[in-house]
């Protein structure tokens, strides 16, 4: 069992160079977060849905993610318009839903869905270690990149260790309940996991030193920029500029 699986596949999106995907996702997210116009936000959702189809994201996991996000949005829709002051837009069971509240909730919902779809389609489809290499080539601070890579590498190891320890606890008739015994047991489990992690991190450091580590990491993974990547860059640039342009001509705070 793994807890670090990406959405693998063989579509054109999967084959794209991860570097422009990282940049495009970030710019898209910022633009959408800044936007205050429904036409931009709705186009954002449309772009997201298009990319999700293009990258053939598996339906079930994607639906689960969308559902989890939108359940929260339903709560927002019920809470914010009914509790914020202002002119009511409509009444439901004689409860007034305020104008401002509905717009706030709608804006949040559209933004969240658009960004989630693009984020998942473009970055959720990159193998995680390639993502680390992409960060490196995009000049993220070296230490941060290495922290990212190391964290990734040990996630599955630690998850496995956790599962093994939990299994032995179950074999000794442990059943979680709301009790200090349970909290203590989980505390010890976590403590043991940490002790092993820390001991292991010392061994790793020792092993790295033995292999000539002097405080500098060398990356040797390189990406190749293909024609399809150029097409992707160009298309994203056009789409993103279009978003910015529409946002700009729509002016002010209007919806």
């Amino acid at each position, binding site marked *: 069992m793994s807890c670090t699986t990406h959405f693998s596949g063989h579509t054109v999106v999967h084959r794209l160079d991860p570097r422009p995907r990282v940049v495009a996702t970030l710019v898209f997210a910022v633009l959408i977060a800044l936007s205050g116009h429904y036409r931009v936000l709705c186009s954002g959702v449309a772009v997201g849905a298009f990319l999700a189809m293009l990258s053939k994201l598996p339906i079930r996991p994607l639906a689960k993610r969308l559902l989890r996000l939108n359940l929260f949005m339903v709560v927002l829709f019920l809470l914010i318009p009914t509790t914020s002051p202002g002119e009511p837009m409509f009444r439901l069971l004689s409860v007034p839903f305020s104008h401002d509240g509905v717009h706030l909730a709608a804006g949040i919902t559209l933004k969240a869905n658009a960004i989630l779809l693009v*984020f998942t389609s473009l970055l959720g489809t990159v193998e995680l270690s390639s993502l680390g290499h992409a960060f490196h080539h995009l000049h993220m601070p070296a230490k941060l990149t290495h*922290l990212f890579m*190391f964290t990734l590498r040990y996630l599955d190891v630690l*998850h496995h260790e956790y599962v093994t320890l939990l299994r032995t606890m179950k074999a000794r008739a442990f059943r979680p309940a709301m009790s200090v015994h349970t909290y203590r047991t989980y505390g010890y*489990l976590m403590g043991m*996991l940490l*002790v092993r*992690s*820390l001991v292991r991190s010392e061994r790793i450091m020792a092993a790295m030193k033995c292999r000539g580590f002097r405080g500098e990491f060398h990356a040797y993974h390189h990406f190749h920029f293909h024609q399809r990547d150029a097409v992707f860059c160009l298309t994203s640039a056009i789409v993103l500029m279009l978003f910015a342009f529409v946002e700009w001509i729509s002016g002010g705070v209007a919806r």
Partner: protein
Amino acid sequence: MHITEGVAPASVAAAGALLAAGGVALGLRAMKDEQIPRAALVASAIFVASLVIRLPLGPSSVHPVLNGLAGVLLGWAAMPAFLVALFLQALLFQFGGITTLGINTVTMGFPAVACYYLFSRRIRESKKGREAFLLGVAAGVTALTLSFVLWAGSLILSGKQLAIIVKLSLLPHLAIVTIEGIFTGFIVGFLARVYPKAFEMPHIIKTRSDP
């Protein structure tokens, strides 16, 4: 205790991103190269715990956050550690989000660092398991309470209509903070007895020229 994607307007998101960038920069400077594996392993362990451990609470259960623990173990390095962990959570499990990554890093990371200054030395110098346990409880409670305040603050700054969410979550959070405290206490007590070296590393900010 995440701010979900889309909730924060540009101004709040940008402020969060700037603060987070500053904190992470300080953290990266404090973290020596040979501490990277350690920070990464603590980050992984905490990531896994916050994902799979469910502490029973009434008919439901809560996930631990463990930022107090991260703080006393990592000091300023907790900032980059949380940045990485939160990015992965957003990517893999849709907790938080990419535009709110900065805010969430601030919300989790700064309370962690505060706990480092408040409790790390005391835990190191504690003589008995019980004392370490109580300090751990204090660290867990302090960190999560501060996180709650920061989280509530950024929600209210994002829109005063959102204050209702804060109000509704006040009571559940009280219970969550209590359990987090007890849980952190047991972990810290365990570490103090079994592997006191965990609290020994010098994580204070050091400039490059320091020996």
